């Protein structure tokens, strides 16, 4: 698992590679929270996540809500068909903001101000 962080004007892009499961959630959470400040927008690029477990999903939701509580916006992008289906079937997809790709995501986050 690796976390790549890239600061852009509109948002902080965070790309996760590898497995997002109970063994990696704590690290990812720490890395993300260390990289952002209150009010920052975050675009989480999931296109290189190879496995998303139930615990991984719950971590994402905690992160999403933490950032929202600090007046930021977190969005997901790059969901594979399998991950997107799994999130949709279990009701999680409705709880997140998602974008088709980075560009659309960044544009939307820019508008969000």
């Amino acid at each position, binding site marked *: 698992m690796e976390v790549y962080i890239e600061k852009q004007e509109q948002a902080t892009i965070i790309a996760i590679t590898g497995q997002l*499961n*109970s*063994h990696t*959630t704590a690290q990812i959470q720490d890395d993300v929270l260390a990289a952002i400040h209150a009010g920052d927008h975050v675009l989480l690029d999931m296109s290189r996540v190879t496995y998303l*477990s*139930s*615990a991984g999903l*719950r971590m994402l939701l905690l992160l999403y809500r933490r950032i929202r509580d600090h007046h930021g916006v977190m969005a997901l992008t790059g969901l594979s068909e399998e991950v997107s*289906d*799994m999130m949709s*079937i*279990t*009701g*999680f997809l409705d*709880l997140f903001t998602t974008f088709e790709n980075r560009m659309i995501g960044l544009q939307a986050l820019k508008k969000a101000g």
Partner: protein
Amino acid sequence: MAFDLPDRIDNQPTHQYGQYQLRAGKPYPFGASIVRNGVNFAIFSRHAVSCTLVLFRHGEPTPMAEIPFPKEFMVGDVFTMTVFGLDSSERDFEYGFRMEGLFAPHRGHWFNPDHILLDPYAKAIGGRDVWGEYVESIYPHRAQLIFDDYDWEEDRPLEIPIEDLVIYEMHVRGFTAHPSSEVKYPGTYAAIREKIPYLKELGVNCVELMPVFEFDEHEYDRYNPITGEKLINYWGYSTIGFFAPKTGYAATGRYRMQVDELKTLIKDLHRNGIEVILDVVFNHTAEGNEKGPTISFRGIDNKTYYMLAPDGNYLNFSGTGNTMNCNNPVVRNMVLECLRYWVSEYHIDGFRFDLASILGRDQYGAPLANPPLIETLAYDPILAKCKLIAEAWDAGGMYQVGTFPAYGRWAEWNGKYRDTIRRFLRSDGGIIWEVAERLQGSPDLYYSRGTGASINFITCHDGFSLRDLFSYNYKHNIANGEDNRDGTNDNYSWNCGWEGDSDDPNIIALRHKLIKNAVSLLLVSQGVPMILMGDEIAHTKSGNNNTYCHDNELNWMNWALKDENSEIFRFFKHMIAFRHAHPTLRNRRHFVHRDYKGSGYPDISWHGTRSWQPDWADYSRTIAFMLCGKHAKNGEIEDDYLYVAANMHWETHRFEMPRLPPKFEWYLFADTGLPTPLDINEPGAEVRLREQRYYTVKARSIIILVGKPI
């Protein structure tokens, strides 16, 4: 000082076993619960001498640890401890128990520490993660932890009055397993969600799911004598764990997210105005008799969980090998806690209890006058608003249709409705008075309990499909591998002159008409109608009336039939909409046969070929009735007048309609004697009759008229 002190002392270990740190557990709640820093385990056994917790890494063949419950942690008959450091965040482990005690089947004890036993309170069960995939294991059905953190948003059970329901009895897998369903994940909870628009189009507002508690589809060792295929426990009336949803029905079972998937389905059904009733099987378990596998209850405390004869043999009131000891207070509590769990954690709207009469037997099998379990469920505060529906008989000879102890709450599958209406539909004589009772919500059985006590159905999963009811005189169950002995012989069916499928257009037309007659009567009857999945598109089970063991087209709904039999689907759809449109069909209390609204008509009046002169003679096969719209919902609201004439005679009869008040006229809603699309109209778009006095009803046909202002 560089020490990190814990904030509290009560969540710190006091004991050590190998690498595991322990603390005395909480004996309640039973099962495994996530607590701060660890997991609390609690399991009851009255007769075990000792118990060991067995831990596996997810999916591993051999245990990662075995931890005996320290004697000093025991409370009463409950083995309990808290184990620290288990990674509950991912639920990466699975757990079971070994129980030591007496092995003496003739005395009712089956303890054997070689078996790893499933927690009866397991909230998720692994091992059969994908439908049909068999995994050999020393511990095949594995208890897992779940998070109770589902976000229900605004959802809660719908609490639709029971008499307003149109129930659709369905099988999770059968609904979409057929390739014609064209769903992404066939045979799953998710696929039902994808098909909600279909349920809405049909118009049902309640689905009754055949068993969704974890079961083992691989439990049989028998083969289809025709095809050689292995038989499957397809229906699932054979519970392994009462608190866990069937994992193999979840598209996300392999991610261990079946709980979230089922809850998401329920939330979405609710959003669409559809209630969810579960068919629950508390009368027996998958462990069968002494020849069956030891999975859980038998090895944990056989004598508590099962009804036994004095010689230790299993009593068999369920017809499946064993009988749950439902009126043992410990088992009774488990049933109660199970139902409370499904209502509070899954927002379930109601339950249908398979062979519910067993719940009214004492520990030796004798029927109880005042069965505590049935009473407890009726008065339980958490179950207070949910529907309780009994299959009011069992395989031990108890038949309680009309007499099931109701405590003002319980409804029943009305088996007498099914039989009487089937006989009427095939033109049997001598039952016309009974037909009248059934159409009125069976006041002869339920007068004090109201119409909602009667779940009316003509077909259900047990028995012929509606199409087969008019295509076969006899059951054809050879494929079940029991020499055609299984399944009922009392089908009250009629093959319309040819046994099985026919390409004779006259036979096909007659069968279609009889299907329409059936659904017409069902949806104009007082009480609660229940439709069997697939009947609305004329699904056939090829004459098999007991398809419990087939994972194939006998049970899979073929979606192509929706176009092929669009005539039938359309008829169902309009009949269901008609029922929803007319509160006069959905009274809560029974008719009183008089005019208490001053409308000039009683709430219900009976007619024959002459108005006001019903023919109650033994030879009579005709009946007509009028419902006064001023008496709708027991006089609370106004509706149109309705008139239904059923001519099940094989000859045409001219019916004289009762006169309507001035400025009202009769409009035709349905006439099953007419070819499609004249057979039925959209509710509200009924056609004014030119002849207001008489209507000629063709042989074996039903008309439904609406009386409304000109």
